[in-house]
């Protein structure tokens, strides 16, 4: 049996769409914003139709072309004259546009033919039929109606698991942003029925915001600035303070929300009025706010009492009151109703989404009577396939706006709409002229901007979606000059006890480039000391060894240059700038010395330090020798011969370098540096694959260990984090960048440790492992801990085991704990 599953709350002020899926309700978000609600408001602007939030923009300027609250006119002969279109718009047509817009909330792969649409309890047959018609006009093939109070009761019943055995009366109290409704519902074990209803179409939460501005904020401003008649001036059509009025309304709304949760709130004012600046705070207590709105709330309670009385019931006949609508978050409402009626007032369901949620539960149980309508889908596919489109736009640009031009043929396309997929831009529905359009679209700087273009017929039905149109901002341009290589900075890799390269600008980036990076000092440099901080900017492969790249900027800041000590762990701010003519500028700011080194280096001042060449060779030689040793042990003599010639070459350079002075002005230094780089590059190329292969192997091992633990039931909750870590695994592995792979291993290890530490039992295997270790720094202490551990193991007291493991780990010899190479301060750049 196929059920309808989809539901729409077609509200007077706001509308929502939801889906029932296997017992759960999914309320869809507006892809162009973050809200689940779509204001039921439409603006007509020349050849453009704007639906929802953005239509409200035109309320002030062009009210006659903005249609809203048309739900109240459903089923009447009343129409809305829209000057921009020079025609009358029927409420049915307007509602159908809102319904179509809600369809856009659904993912592209969802097709909806059947839907439940909610209607107010007050709707008569004609109004109900008008709503159905709007549904069909929006393209639905099957429309089932459901009264809003019933939907709210269903949401309540489904979330609170209550059982109704005898006939009961419930009140549904619906207080929204702009309207107020009360319905008396009869519930028994078989059905829910609306017996009576009443309401006020002109009372809503927005009235409370105005009360706060008028009675609290305006008098405060008047008192502080000496202004008079401010309220009148704010509300006047010709007011010069219109911007201020809206700002104050926003503040009032925020304060109202805060007061639902706290006893008092603070409204911060930072405004300018008639050349007087005011910066002050206004404290609003909940009690004061409640006094302001009390008479309005009492009116709503009177309506409840009336409805009970008119149906010959007593307050005690009402089993419960269910609250819906955003305004019911205000505690005074719940309190006033409970005091006046003396029954349970239930606010357990989400007041904003309760109606659509209840309607979705209903849709999930309501069988669809629609026959499998394959013909419709086929027709659409045919129409889609005959549309031929040609798009013209710059795929890469540095402009903040870009022109998209398109031409179409093959089908009758009347309208189009362009949406930026990150939610930041919507062209609105626009009419197509001569089967083509040209539209400037705004771009997010430095990002890949993806757009979706919808082609629509005259009824705004979607004919085809072109997705994605991608425009890359900032990375490339036809005019700029691209970087031939990565530009990197040499930093200390404390894990590997060596230095490594970190990419600052990627190969292909367009000049000019500027970037600020933040590092921390990896060593302390005392003022006036000989110790130094080295900033080495290198052009070359970012995954290669530092000494294999070309140093295009090398600066040293010595202790004697410092006004204060540079403390390990403090921030170092480095700004790198490469001009179009490839001139490199570096600005360094040392936080702990509060000292800035401006333009300390530029390309024309390039220098090579003999000392640096020597240190680099020393560092790499030990690595070369180690690899030769392993190759010989594996009898891989061809490989070790190649490595040996590199070793000899490096030693020869060292000897030559020792013979020249640092102030030597000949080219020798540069020649030696070139030779050194070449040899180190050869070594890098020879060994990189092996190193990367080892890293990948370790990555896979770590992942397998982690997966074993993740598959245990109690660790289910870590799975999302795990998925997040491995989601770009392919990219990382394919990059063949050992540092990237290593950082992934680190992330996996951190998660692994978190899992292990989440349960005491996981420490048993560690404990047993430590039993095999015999090099504790304090053997007597270790023995004592083992005694405690064995006893705890026997008693299954795993908490003690955890502590014993911590104790024993502290006694493991430092060298065994971190099998690290020596990384002296002299070999460090000082940047971490």
């Amino acid at each position, binding site marked *: 049996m196929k059920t309808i599953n989809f539901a729409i709350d077609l509200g007077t002020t706001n509308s929502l769409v939801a889906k029932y899926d296997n017992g759960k309700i999914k309320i869809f978000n507006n892809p162009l914003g973050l809200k689940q609600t779509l204001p039921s408001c439409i603006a007509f602007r020349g050849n453009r139709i704007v639906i929802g939030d953005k239509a409200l923009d035109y309320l002030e*300027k062009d009210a006659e072309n903005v249609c809203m609250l048309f739900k109240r006119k459903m089923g009447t002969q009343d129409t809305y004259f829209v000057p921009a279109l020079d025609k009358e718009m029927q409420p049915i047509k307007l509602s159908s546009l809102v319904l179509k817009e809600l369809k856009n909330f659904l993912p592209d792969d969802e097709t909806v033919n059947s839907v439940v649409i909610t209607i107010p309890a007050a709707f008569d047959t004609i109004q109900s039929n008008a709503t159905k018609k709007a549904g069909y006009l929006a393209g639905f093939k099957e429309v089932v109606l459901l009264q809003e109070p019933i939907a709210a009761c269903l949401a309540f019943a489904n979330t609170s698991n209550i059982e109704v055995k005898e006939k009961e009366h419930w009140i549904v109290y619906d207080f929204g942003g702009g309207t107020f409704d009360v319905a008396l519902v009869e519930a028994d074990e078989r059905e829910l029925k609306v017996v009576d209803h009443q309401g006020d179409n002109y009372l809503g939460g927005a009235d409370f915001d105005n009360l706060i501005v008028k009675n609290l904020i305006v008098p405060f401003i008047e008192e502080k600035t000496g202004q008079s008649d401010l309220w009148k001036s704010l509300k006047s059509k010709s007011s010069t303070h*219109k911007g201020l009025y809206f700002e104050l*309304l*926003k503040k009032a709304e925020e304060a109202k929300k805060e007061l639902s949760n706290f006893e008092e709130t603070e409204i911060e004012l930072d405004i300018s009025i008639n050349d007087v600046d005011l910066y002050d705070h206004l404290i609003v207590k909940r009690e004061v706010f409640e006094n302001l709105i009390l008479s309005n709330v009492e009116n709503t309670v009177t309506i409840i009492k009336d409805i009970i009385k008119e149906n010959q019931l007593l307050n005690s006949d009402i089993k419960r009151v269910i609250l819906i609508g955003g305004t019911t978050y205000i505690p005074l409402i719940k309190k006033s109703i409970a005091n006046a009626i003396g029954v349970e007032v239930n606010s357990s369901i989400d007041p904003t989404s309760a109606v659509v949620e209840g309607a979705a539960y209903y849709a999930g149980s309501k069988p669809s009577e629609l026959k499998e309508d394959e013909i419709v889908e086929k027709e659409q596919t045919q129409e889609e396939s005959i549309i031929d489109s040609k798009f013209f736009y710059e795929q890469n640009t540095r402009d903040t706006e870009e022109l998209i031009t398109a031409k179409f043929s093959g089908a009758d396309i009347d309208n189009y709409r362009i949406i930026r997929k*990150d939610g930041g831009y919507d062209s609105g529905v626009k009419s197509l002229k001569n089967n083509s359009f040209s539209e400037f679209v*705004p771009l997010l700087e430095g990002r890949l901007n993806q757009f979706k273009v919808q082609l629509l017929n005259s009824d705004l039905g979607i004919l085809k979606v072109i997705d994605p149109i991608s425009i890359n901002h900032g990375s490339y341009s036809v005019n700029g000059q691209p970087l031939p290589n990565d530009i990197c900075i040499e930093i200390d890799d404390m894990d590997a006890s060596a230095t490594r390269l970190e990419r600052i600008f990627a190969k292909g980036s367009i000049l000019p480039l500027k970037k600020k990076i933040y590092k921390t000092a990896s060593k302390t440099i005392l003022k006036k000391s000989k110790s130094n901080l080295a900033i080495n900017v290198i052009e070359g492969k970012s995954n290669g060894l530092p000494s294999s790249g070309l140093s295009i900027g090398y600066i040293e800041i010595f202790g004697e240059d410092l006004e204060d000590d540079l403390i390990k762990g403090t921030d170092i701010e480095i700004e790198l700038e490469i001009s179009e003519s490839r001139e490199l500028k570096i600005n360094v700011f040392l936080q702990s010395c509060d000292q800035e080194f401006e333009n300390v280096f530029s390309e024309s001042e390039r220098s090579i330090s003999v000392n640096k060449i020597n240190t680099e060779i020393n560092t790499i030689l030990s690595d070369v020798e180690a690899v030769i040793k392993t190759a010989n042990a594996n009898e891989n003599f061809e490989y070790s011969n190649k490595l040996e010639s590199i070793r000899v070459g490096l030693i020869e350079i060292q000897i030559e370098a020792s013979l020249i002075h640092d102030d030597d002005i000949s080219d020798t230094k540069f020649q030696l540096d070139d030779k050194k780089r070449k040899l180190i590059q050869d070594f890098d190329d020879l060994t990189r694959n092996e190193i990367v292969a080892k890293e990948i192997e370790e990555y896979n091992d770590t992942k397998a260990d982690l997966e074993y633990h993740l598959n245990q039931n109690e660790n289910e909750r870590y799975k999302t984090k795990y998925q997040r870590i491995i989601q770009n695994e392919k990219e990382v592995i394919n990059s063949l960048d050992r540092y990237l792979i290593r950082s992934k291993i680190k992330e996996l290890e951190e998660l692994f440790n978190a899992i292990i530490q989440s349960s005491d039992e996981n420490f048993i295997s560690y404990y047993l492992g430590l039993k095999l270790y015999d090099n504790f720094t304090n053997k007597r202490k270790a023995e004592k801990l083992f005694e405690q551990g064995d006893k705890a193991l026997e008693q299954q007291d795993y908490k003690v085991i955890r502590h014993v493991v911590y104790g024993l780990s502290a006694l493991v010899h430092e060298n065994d704990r971190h099998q690290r190479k020596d990384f002296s301060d002299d070999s460090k750049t000082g940047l971490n």
Partner: protein
Amino acid sequence: MIEIINQIFALESKLQKNGVDDYSRNFDRIANEFKNLNYHVINPIGKSYRNEMTDVEASISGDLNKNSKITKVLKPIIYEVNGNETSLVQKGIVIVE
């Protein structure tokens, strides 16, 4: 995290208004941290306002036309970046005049 970004934004706006100007380095540093945490924060102050901008919630005073500008930003625009995917996580709250 969104609320932290908002508070930092408010703090910076306040200091700017009071003419304190030796804090920009600290704010740059914080902005960089937000970037590392994959948040792209935009302050649209002074920008021309277009109705098509769905990343701001605008209170418009006076006529909305080509010259309408964002004159006050109560909350910044925040996007979350995930690889090549960008998604709006907070609309800017602005006053347009």
